[in-house]
C-alpha cells in the first residue's frame, strides 16, 4: 500500500469512524427515549379506556333505568307480556326502545329466561337464554357479551337491570356495541390501535419489534353449551412505524453525512497526500537517477520540514559519494599503474631469468676453460637472443599499451617445447611434455601462448611440495573434436592442490599463497586467455594437485 493510500485510509478512518459511532449512538438513544414515550402513551391510553368503559357502562345503566321505568308504565306492553295480547307490539317493543335509547342491544327476558322481546334480534323471541342475565349478575352487572343477530354476532358492553310486572320478574339486558368505530373513538391517534380479543381468540399477536403493547381485561360472557365467565382482553398497541421511519430518516441523514464527509475527507486527504507525497516522489525520482557514474544529481530544498531535511541529507550523501568516487578512481588509477609496474617487473624477470641462467652457465663454463666457454656460448647464444627478442617484443607491447593479439596461426606444440626448454634446472621436479600428433594450429599470438605457459608451469613447479613432483604439459584437440575445432593445452601437477576457497580467489589480482608471490600470475593467465577468445578451466583437489585446461580457438575457426 502506498504512502498516499495509507494517508487516505487513515484520514478517512479518523474522520468517519467517530461520525458513525456518533450516529449509532444517537439512533439508540432516540429509539430508547421514543419507545419509552410510546409506552407512556399506551399506558395512559389504557387508563383512559378503562375510565371510558366505566363511563359508558354507567351510561348504559342510566338508559336501562329509564327504559325500566318506561316498561313499567306501558300498559300495552304489560298486557301483551302478562295476558298474551298484541304480540306484534311486544316483539317490536325492544327494537323500538333500543333505538330510542341509543343502545345497540336490548333483550327483555321473563323470569324463566325466555326472551320476550329482543331489539337487536327481533325474531329470537321465545328462545331460552337464562345464562346471560345470570352471568352478567355474576360479573357485577356489566360485562362484554357477544350479542347474536340474524346476520352475525357483535361484541357489546352490556349491563343488567330488572323490574317486576304482575308479580313476575323481568330482566333487561342492554348494551352498546364495541366495534371498530367505538374503539376508534377512544383514541384520536392513528398510531394507536385498540383491539378486543375474546375467548377463544384470546391470543393477540403483537410484535414487540414493531409495536408497544399494553392490555386490560374485562369480564366476558361466553355463551353456548358451557356458558361461563371468561376474560376478554383489550389490547392497546402503538405502532413503531414512525420510530422506524425516524430511524430510517436519521440513518439516511447520517449516511448522507458520512458520504459527504467521506468525500470531503477524501478530497482533503488526496490534496494533503499529494502535497506531501509529491516532493517525496520527486526526491525518489532524483534518488533513482543516482548511480556510480551519475553523482552529479542536485538535491536542493529550502523547505524547513522533514522533507527538506531529507533532501539536504541526500544532497550531502551524494556529495560524499562524489568525493569517495573520485578517491576510488584515483586509487584505481594508482592500482592500475602499480599493477602494470608489477606486470612489467614480472615479465621482465621472466625474460631475464634465461639470460641470467645463460650467464651462470657461461661463468661455469669459463671456470672449466675457454673452450668450454666458447662452446657454451655457441650453445646458449640462441637462448640469449630469444630472451632479448622476448624482451624487445615485451617492451614493444607495453609501448603500445594493450597491444592487440596478432591472431596468427600458432604452432602450440612448438611453443610448448620452446617454453619447457627454457626452464633450465628444475631441481627434483620432473617436467614432462606430452604433445599430440598432427595438432592443428591455434589462432593465438605465440608470445601470449608462451606467457600463459610460463605462468602456469611456474605456478605448477611452485606448488610441488619441497620441489619434488611432476609437472605434465600436454596438448590435444579440444574435446577430441575435428581438426580446426581448437587446441587444448593441459598443465597438470602433483602439487598441493587448492581448496575451494583458494580456487574461488585464485584468479583474483594479487591473491597468492606463495611467500613473495605477486598474486598476478593466474590473473594474467585468465586475461590473456580471454583476450585470445579462449577458455580456462581448473580441476583441483587439495593434496592431489591441480590441472589447468586452456582451450584456444583453432586457426580455421
Amino acid at each position, binding site marked *: 500500500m502506498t504512502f498516499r493510500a495509507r494517508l487516505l485510509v487513515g484520514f478517512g478512518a479518523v474522520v468517519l469512524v467517530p461520525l458513525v459511532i456518533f450516529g449509532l449512538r444517537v439512533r439508540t438513544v432516540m429509539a430508547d427515549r421514543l419507545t419509552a414515550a410510546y409506552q407512556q402513551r399506551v399506558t395512559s391510553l389504557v387508563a383512559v379506556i378503562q375510565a371510558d368503559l366505566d363511563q359508558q357502562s354507567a351510561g348504559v345503566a342510566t338508559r336501562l333505568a329509564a327504559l325500566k321505568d318506561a316498561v313499567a308504565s306501558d300498559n300495552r306492553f304489560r298486557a301483551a307480556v302478562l295476558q298474551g295480547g298484541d304480540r306484534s307490539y311486544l316483539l317490536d317493543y325492544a327494537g323500538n326502545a333500543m333505538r330510542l335509547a341509543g343502545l345497540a342491544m336490548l333483550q327483555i327476558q321473563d323470569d324463566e329466561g325466555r326472551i320476550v322481546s329482543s331489539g337487536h*334480534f*327481533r*325474531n329470537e*323471541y*321465545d*328462545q331460552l337464554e337464562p345464562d346471560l342475565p345470570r352471568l352478567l349478575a355474576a360479573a357485577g352487572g356489566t360485562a362484554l357479551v357477544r350479542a347474536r343477530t*340474524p*346476520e*352475525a354476532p357483535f361484541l357489546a358492553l352490556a349491563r343488567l337491570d330488572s323490574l317486576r310486572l304482575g308479580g313476575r320478574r323481568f330482566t333487561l339486558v342492554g348494551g352498546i356495541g364495541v366495534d371498530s368505530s367505538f374503539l376508534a373513538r377512544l383514541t384520536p391517534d392513528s398510531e394507536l390501535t385498540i383491539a378486543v380479543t375474546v375467548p377463544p381468540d384470546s391470543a393477540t399477536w403483537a410484535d414487540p419489534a414493531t409495536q408497544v403493547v399494553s392490555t386490560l381485561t374485562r369480564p366476558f360472557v361466553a355463551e353456548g353449551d358451557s356458558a361461563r365467565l371468561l376474560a376478554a382482553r383489550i389490547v392497546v398497541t402503538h405502532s413503531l412505524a414512525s420510530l422506524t421511519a425516524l430511524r430510517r430518516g436519521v440513518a439516511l441523514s447520517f449516511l448522507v453525512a458520512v458520504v459527504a464527509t467521506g468525500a470531503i475527507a477524501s478530497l482533503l486527504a488526496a490534496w494533503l497526500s499529494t502535497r506531501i507525497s509529491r516532493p517525496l516522489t520527486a526526491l525518489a525520482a532524483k534518488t533513482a537517477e543516482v548511480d556510480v557514474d551519475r553523482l552529479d544529481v542536485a538535491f536542493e530544498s529550502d523547505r524547513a520540514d522533514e522533507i527538506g531535511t531529507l533532501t539536504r541529507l541526500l544532497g550531502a550523501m551524494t556529495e560524499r559519494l562524489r568525493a569517495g568516487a573520485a578517491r576510488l578512481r584515483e586509487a584505481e588509477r594508482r592500482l592500475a599503474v602499480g599493477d602494470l609496474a608489477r606486470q612489467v617487473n614480472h615479465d621482465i624477470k621472466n625474460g631475464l631469468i634465461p639470460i641470467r641462467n645463460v650467464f651462470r652457465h657461461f661463468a661455469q663454463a669459463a671456470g672449466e676453460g675457454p673452450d668450454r666457454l666458447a662452446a657454451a656460448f655457441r650453445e646458449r647464444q640462441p637462448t640469449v637472443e630469444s630472451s632479448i627478442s622476448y624482451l624487445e617484443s615485451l617492451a614493444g607491447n607495453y609501448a603500445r599499451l594493450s597491444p592487440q593479439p596478432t591472431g596468427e596461426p600458432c604452432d602450440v606444440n612448438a611453443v610448448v617445447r620452446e617454453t619447457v626448454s627454457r626452464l633450465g634446472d628444475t631441481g627434483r621436479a620432473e617436467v614432462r611434455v606430452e604433445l599430440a600428433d598432427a595438432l592443428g594450429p591455434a589462432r593465438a599470438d605465440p608470445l601470449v601462448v608462451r606467457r600463459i605457459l610460463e605462468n602456469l608451469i611456474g605456478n605448477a613447479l611452485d606448488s610441488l611440495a619441497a620441489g619434488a613432483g611432476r609437472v605434465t604439459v600436454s596438448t590435444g584437440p579440444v574435446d577430441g573434436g575435428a581438426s580446426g575445432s581448437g587446441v587444448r593445452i593441459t598443465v597438470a601437477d602433483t602439487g598441493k592442490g587448492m581448496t575451494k576457497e583458494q580456487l574461488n580467489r585464485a584468479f583474483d589480482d594479487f591473491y597468492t599463497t606463495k611467500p613473495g608471490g605477486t598474486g598476478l600470475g593466474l590473473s594474467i593467465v585468465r586475461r590473456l586467455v580471454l583476450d585470445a577468445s579462449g577458455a580456462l578451466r581448473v580441476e583441483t583437489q587439495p593434496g592431489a594437485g591441480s590441472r589447468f585446461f586452456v582451450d584456444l580457438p583453432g586457426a580455421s575457426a
Partner: protein
Amino acid sequence: MNSLRKRIIVVSLLAAACRAGRPRAELPPTPGVAPSDTSCTLAASAVVSRDTVTLAVTAPVDPAHAPAPRNDAERLVFAQLYESLLRVDCQGRALPALARSWSQDGDRWTFALREGARFWDGAPVTAVDVVAAWRSRDSGLARVVTIADDHTLSVGKRAGGPDMPLELFADPALAVTKPAPGGGWPIGTGRLWLTGAEAGTPDLLVARPVGHGGPGGPGGRGGLPVVKITSTPPDGARDALDGGADMLVVDDPATLEYAARLRGYTDAPLEWSRTYVLLVPAGERAGVGDLRLESLREAVHGDARPAEESDEKGHPWFTELARCGLVGGRDAVEAGARRRRIVYNQADRSAADLAARLVGLGVLGRGTAAAGLPAAAFGSALRAGGDAGYVLELHARVYDACRAAAVELPPWSSAGKVVPLLDVRSHAVLRRALPRLWSDWDGTLRFASPTASP
C-alpha cells in the same frame, strides 16, 4: 223432369257441402258470472261512477317491464292496462278477457278473440298480433300456435312439455301488446291506456279510458274513471292517504292501523298471493330442525298465515316437483362446502324476518347466519345452491304449478327440500264510494265498468 231437378238439387247441395270443407267449430258460449255474484268484487256494493280515481303505489313502476309485472305495484298498474286472453278470478274461475270464448280438443285449446277488440291506437287485434306478442316472451309457446283466421287461434301442447291448463293463458306475461313507436309504454288492449308520465309530474301516471279524449275514439268504454297513479316510498304510504289517495295496496301493519283510524277508508284484505318457502339443497348436513310454524306468523310484519296452499292431494304444490319432470338438476356444491347462511332477497322484508326467525330457531343449526343479498346476487346465489338455505317468495300460480316451479325454483331444488313457511297477502285500503273493483286469483284488482259483469 221433377226427378231430374231433384237429383240436380241433391248433387248441387252435396257439391256445395264438399266445397265448404270441414265446418267451423262453434266455440262454447262465454263462461259467465252472474251479475249478482259479488264474491270477487270489492268496493261499492252499489254502482258508483267517478270521473277520477287516485291510485297510490309504494314501489316503482317501470314501463320496460310491461306487461309482465315484477312487483305488486306493477301488477296492479299493468292489470288496468293490458289483457291476456282470459283472466282468473279470486274463485279460480276462468273468465273472458281478450278472448270471448274458448274450447278444448284433447291437448289443444282454441280461442276466439273478442269481437271489436282493438289496440289503444284503434288497430284491430288479430290472431297474428297475439302470436307476435307471445313470440317476444315465450317463443316456445308461439311455435305451437295455429292461426285459424284473424280472430281464431289454437294452441297445442309442446312436445315433451307439461300439460297446459287453461289458466296458463291468464298469465300477465302473455298479455297482448305491441311496441309503441318511439318506445315507452307498450300499446295494449286494456280498457285504460297510458302513454307516459304527465309533464312536470314524473311521479304521476294518468291512465285514461280508451276513447276518452285519446285513442279509440270518443266516448270511452264502460264509464271507467281516469286513474291517476302516484308513486310513493314505502314509508310514505300514510302520507299518500293523507294526500287523498283513493286506493292503496299495502301490507304494512302500521299503515293499515293508520288507515283504520281514518274516516272514509275501508281495509279490504286481498287474496293470499304469495308463499314463502325455505329451500334447502339436497344433503344439507344440518337438516331442517323444528320450524314451529305457528310461531313464524309473528316473525313477519304483514298479514300472514302458515302456508297451506295445497294441490289436489293436500300437499303444497311446490313440494311435488317430481311430477313436473324437474329431476336431475342437482346443486354442484358439496354439502360440506356450503356457506352456513340462510340467504334472502334483501329488498323483501318478510323474507328477512323469516330468515332471522329461522336463524333464531336454529333451524339449520347454530352458527348459521342470515344474509340479505341484492336481487341479482340473490338470484345468482340461488342458482348456484352454495348456501345452507334460501328463503324464497313464490307467487301463487294456480294455473300451472310445474311451470311456476320451472320459473321460480332453481334446477337443483327438485333434489332438495322445499319447506313451505307462510302465505302472505296484501290489503287494499279503499276510499268508500269507489267504482267497483274485481279481484283476481293473485289478489290483483281491476276497475270494473259500472255496467259490466265480472
